[in-house]
C-alpha cells in the first residue's frame, strides 16, 4: 500500500484516448505537464477534461494510450497505488469522520508515523487550525473546500488533481480561494492539474492552459499567449470575446495586407496561423478605439461604422457598431477616454496592427461562443 516510490518528473499523456459506447470523450491526447507547474485544462462541459482527469486519477481506464509520471507508466495502476491525489468537485469529505480523521485518512492507510503533527501542519497551511474535531457538515463551503485540499496535499502527491474545485462556491469566495490555491501551490511546489470551464479561473491561477474541445487540445500556452494570440476561432471566442471579420489576403510582405469588405488593414505574420488567402481577421473589443467620424483616427487599421447600441457598465462602455456589411462589432471603451459616441453616430473603429490576429477561414466563426452551461 505504500505510496509508489517517488518517481519525480513531468506528467505525460501519450496518445491518450477514451471511448465510451457512443462517443469518444478523449481523442488521442498528447500533453506534457512540467513538474511543479500549475496547469489548467479548460473547456466547455463535455469536452473531455474531466474524463482526462479521472484517467490520471485511475478512476477511469484509458481505451488506449499511456499516462506517465517521469519514467513510470501508471496507465493501468489501481487508484490507491498512484502518487496522485484528487480534490473532488463536491469535495467528497467522509461525513462520518471528523476533520482530523478526514485529513489523516491517506496517512493512516499508508501506515505513516507522526500523523498528528502532519495533520496539524497541513491544517494550518489551509488556515483551519482548531477545526480538527469538527464534523464536515459543520463547516462552510469554503472551509470544506480547504479540508478537501488538505486531505489531498498531506500525502505529498507527485500530481494534485483539482476537478472544478471552486464550482460550488459563491463568486466572492471563489476569487479568494483562487488566490489561496495559487499561494499554496507556490508554497508546496507540487504539480497542480486543474480542470475548469471558467476561463477567468484558469487565467487567474494557471501557468499554462490547455483549451480542450471535443476531446482534443485546441491550443496550449500561457494565459497571455492564448488571449493575445489565439490560433482557432474556438479559442478566440471561448477565452474572452473576439470580433472576427472575413478577409482576403492581397499582399504578403513583412506583414500581411488583408482586405475586409474593401477596408485594407495589416496583420503581423507572427500572429497569422494560416497560409490560406481566406482568413478570419480578429481583434479583441478592448483593443479598438472608437472615434466620431470627423475626429482624427489614432491607429492604422480602420473600419467605419454606425453605433447601434451603447451600454455604460461602470469600468467601461460597451458599444455595438454596425459595419457597412451589416456585421455588428463589439468595442469596449475604458471610461477614461470619452469618445462621446451615441447610438446613430457615424464612427471610425481603429486599432494597432500589432493587436490583430488572423485565423484560417475554414472554421466555424461561432465555435466556442459561450453558451450558458447547464451543469454549473
Amino acid at each position: 500500500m505504500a505510496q509508489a516510490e517517488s518517481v519525480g518528473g513531468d506528467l505525460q499523456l501519450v496518445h491518450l484516448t477514451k471511448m465510451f459506447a457512443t462517443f469518444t470523450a478523449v481523442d488521442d491526447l498528447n500533453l506534457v505537464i512540467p513538474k511543479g507547474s500549475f496547469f489548467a485544462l479548460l473547456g466547455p462541459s463535455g469536452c473531455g477534461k474531466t474524463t482526462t482527469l479521472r484517467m490520471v486519477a485511475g478512476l477511469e481506464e484509458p481505451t488506449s494510450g499511456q499516462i506517465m509520471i517521469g519514467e513510470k507508466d501508471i496507465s493501468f495502476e489501481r487508484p490507491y497505488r498512484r502518487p496522485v491525489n484528487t480534490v473532488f468537485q463536491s469535495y467528497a469529505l467522509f461525513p462520518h469522520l471528523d476533520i482530523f480523521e478526514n485529513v489523516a485518512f491517506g496517512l493512516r492507510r499508508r501506515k505513516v508515523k507522526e500523523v498528528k503533527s502532519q495533520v496539524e501542519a497541513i491544517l494550518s497551511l489551509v488556515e483551519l487550525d482548531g477545526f480538527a474535531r469538527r464534523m464536515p457538515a459543520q463547516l462552510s463551503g469554503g472551509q470544506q473546500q480547504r479540508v478537501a485540499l488538505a486531505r489531498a496535499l498531506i500525502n505529498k502527491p507527485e500530481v494534485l488533481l483539482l476537478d472544478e474545485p471552486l464550482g460550488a462556491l459563491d463568486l466572492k469566495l471563489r476569487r479568494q480561494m483562487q488566490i489561496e490555491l495559487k499561494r499554496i501551490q507556490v508554497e508546496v511546489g507540487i504539480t497542480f492539474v486543474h480542470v475548469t470551464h471558467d476561463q477567468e479561473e484558469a487565467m487567474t491561477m494557471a501557468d499554462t492552459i490547455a483549451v480542450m474541445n471535443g476531446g482534443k487540445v485546441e491550443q496550449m500556452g500561457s494565459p497571455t499567449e492564448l488571449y493575445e494570440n489565439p490560433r482557432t476561432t474556438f479559442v478566440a471566442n471561448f477565452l474572452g470575446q473576439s470580433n472576427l471579420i472575413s478577409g482576403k489576403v492581397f499582399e504578403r510582405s513583412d506583414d500581411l495586407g488583408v482586405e475586409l469588405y474593401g477596408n485594407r488593414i495589416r496583420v503581423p505574420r507572427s500572429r497569422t496561423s494560416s497560409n490560406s488567402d481566406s482568413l478570419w481577421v480578429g481583434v479583441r473589443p478592448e483593443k479598438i478605439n472608437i472615434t466620431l467620424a470627423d475626429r482624427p483616427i489614432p491607429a492604422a487599421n480602420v473600419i467605419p461604422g454606425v453605433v447601434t447600441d451603447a451600454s455604460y457598465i461602470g469600468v467601461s462602455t460597451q458599444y455595438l457598431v454596425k459595419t457597412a456589411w451589416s456585421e455588428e462589432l463589439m468595442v469596449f471603451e475604458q471610461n477614461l477616454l470619452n469618445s462621446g459616441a451615441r447610438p446613430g453616430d457615424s464612427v471610425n473603429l481603429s486599432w494597432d496592427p500589432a493587436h490583430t490576429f488572423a485565423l484560417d477561414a475554414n472554421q466555424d466563426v461561432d465555435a466556442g461562443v459561450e453558451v450558458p452551461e447547464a451543469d454549473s
Partner: protein
Amino acid sequence: MPTATSTRSPSQPVLKTPSQIHRARVWFRSHLILLVGIVVLGYMFLPVFVVVALSFNEPKSRLTYTFDKFTFNNWLHPCQVGDMCTAVGTSLKIGILATIGATLIGTLMAFAIVRHRFRGRAVTNLLVFLPMASPEVVMGSSLLTLFVAAKFPLGFWTILIAHIMFCISFVVVTVKARLAGLDPRLEQAAMDLYADEWQTFRRITLPLVMPGIVSAALLAFSLSFDDFIVTNFNSGSTVTFPMFVWGAAQRGIPPQVNVIGTAMFLFALTLVLISQLLGARRRRRLG
C-alpha cells in the same frame, strides 16, 4: 379587537358575540390537525394499552376478558403457564437466526442491485418485491407443498428457512434505499487516498450503510417473531410464541401472554429511544 382578549371579566356577557364565534372557528381550524392526530394515535395505541393493562390482571376464570383484580403475580411468574416460555425461546431463537440470515443475504443482494450492472438487474429489482406482495397464505401453503414433496421433515429448520425467505425482500428494500443515497465519489475519494477495495468497504461504505442494515435487521426480527400464517403451515410439531397464543386463545388467553407482549413492547421502545438519542447526538455533532 381590544374586547376580544383572553382575560374574561365577570361583567362580560355570556352571549357569544360574532367575534367570539369567529375566534372559536379560528381556534378549531388551527387545532384541527392536532385533534385528528390525537384521535389517530389513540386508535393506534389502544390495543397496546389493553395488553399492558391485562398483564397486571388476575382473571376470575380463564374465559373472562375483563379486568378483575390488579396483581404483579403474572410478572413475577411469567413461565407458570404450560409451555409458553419454551415457545418464546423457540421464537427468539428463530427470530435471531432468521435476522442474521436474511440481513446477510439481503444486504449482499442490495449491494449487487445498486452497485453492479448485470444482465437481469431490472428483473431482479422487480422480483424482489414479489414475496412482499404475495399473500402469506399462498407462500405458506406453497412452501409446505415443497417441503413435503422434498420429504424435508417439518419443524424448527423449515420455519427458519421460511422466515429467512420472507424477510429477505424487506432487508433488500431497506438497505437499497440507504445505499442508493450514498455518493459513489466517497468511495472513489477513499481509493484515491490509498485505501484498497477492502479498506474502502470497511472504513467508508460499511459505516455509512450501517444505519440501513441495522433498521433492516430490526424489521426482519419483528417480522419473524410475530409471524403466524407461514409458520403455522410449516412448523410440524414445533410451537412458536404466536402459535402458542393462537392455541391458548381457544381456551382463554393466560394473562402471562400479555406480560410477554408488554415486555416485547418495552424492549422495542427502548431500542427506538436509544437509536433516537444516538441519532440526536450525532446530529448535534454533525451540526
